[in-house]
């Protein structure tokens, strides 16, 4: 098996059949392999998250990240498109599920796909990863510090430009194993909210594996931000690679 992959911008079919932009890392040999859908965080389809897509290519997976704001401003610069989406209140849940479904289908259609697809998201994408795993036939999901999977977003009342609600009603439908990576110092999600999610997943008989890193807060994977915590990020990447390696093998 070669370690060569091609990283490139592609077009995929997203929510309601719309053509959207995506960033992909595609292995360049014929050996069958699983695919990973990467969900970027609320501020947008950015360099840091594209680097994560390439990391999955390096790890031997096919990977693709849909530009969730393409619908709001097709062809615009990613930061301008994110601003346009923000002005509309962010990414509606239904649209997110449609775009992840399209990304998963894109991965399954690749000549070297083994049919298995996982999803991973960071920050707001962490919640969206869980949402996708509760809504679509996927094989594995990773939630990196997603807020409002559980918990009460009512503190955001008075700010109507938002599409956010917790996922209590959807958790019984989680249909694949879930890896959760959290910062013990994070306030959103707080350790209490993570514990509540653990209790609910146990109650519903779901397969999950959660890790909270002492000394790390929100966004500890983000290498260009002060929140970066190298030890947590290194261990987290190893857990992600192992988790997807296990669940996305044919």
């Amino acid at each position, binding site marked *: 098996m070669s370690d060569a992959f091609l990283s490139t911008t592609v077009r995929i079919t997203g929510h309601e059949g719309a053509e959207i932009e995506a960033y992909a890392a595609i292995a360049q040999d014929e050996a069958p392999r699983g695919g990973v859908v990467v969900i970027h965080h609320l*501020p947008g389809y*950015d360099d840091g998250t594209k680097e994560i897509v390439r990391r999955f290519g390096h790890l031997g997976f096919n990977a693709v990240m849909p530009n969730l704001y393409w619908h709001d*401003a097709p062809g615009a610069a990613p930061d*301008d498109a994110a601003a346009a989406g*923000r*002005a509309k209140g962010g990414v509606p849940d239904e649209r997110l599920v449609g775009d992840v479904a399209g990304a998963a289908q894109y991965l399954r259609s690749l000549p070297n796909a083994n049919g298995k697809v996982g999803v991973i998201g960071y*920050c707001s994408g962490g919640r969206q990863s869980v949402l996708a795993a509760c809504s679509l036939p996927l094989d594995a999901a990773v939630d990196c510090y997603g807020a409002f999977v559980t918990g009460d977003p009512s503190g*955001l009342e008075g*700010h109507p430009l938002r599409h956010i609600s917790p996922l209590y009603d959807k958790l019984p439908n989680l249909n694949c194993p879930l890896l959760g990576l959290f910062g013990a110092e994070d306030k959103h999600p707080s350790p209490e909210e993570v514990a509540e999610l653990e209790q609910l997943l146990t109650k519903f008989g779901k397969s999950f594996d959660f890790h909270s890193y002492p000394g790390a807060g929100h966004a500890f994977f983000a290498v260009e931000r*002060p929140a970066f915590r190298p030890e947590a990020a290194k261990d987290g990447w190893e857990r992600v690679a192992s988790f997807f390696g296990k669940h996305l093998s044919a």
Partner: protein
Amino acid sequence: MCTYITAKVDTEGSGKGAEGWFPLTETTVYFDHPVHASADHTLNIDFRNPDRGAGARVAVELTAETARALATAILETLDAVPEGVA
């Protein structure tokens, strides 16, 4: 965290963006991860004119301390304007 908090202000004025000056019609204000600033979170302001496309935007990402100082300066400046001028 991604805060999801966004405020919007109807706007009259002009801004200078990547392609020069253009009229502004709306401003969004939110506190979230920045694109460029070296901070985990910033107070972000987008001065926009959506009718001219998503690129018709003047963006700033300010630390919370800077944003508060700016807000105070704006109000102090407006308060100092002689009666009948503003």
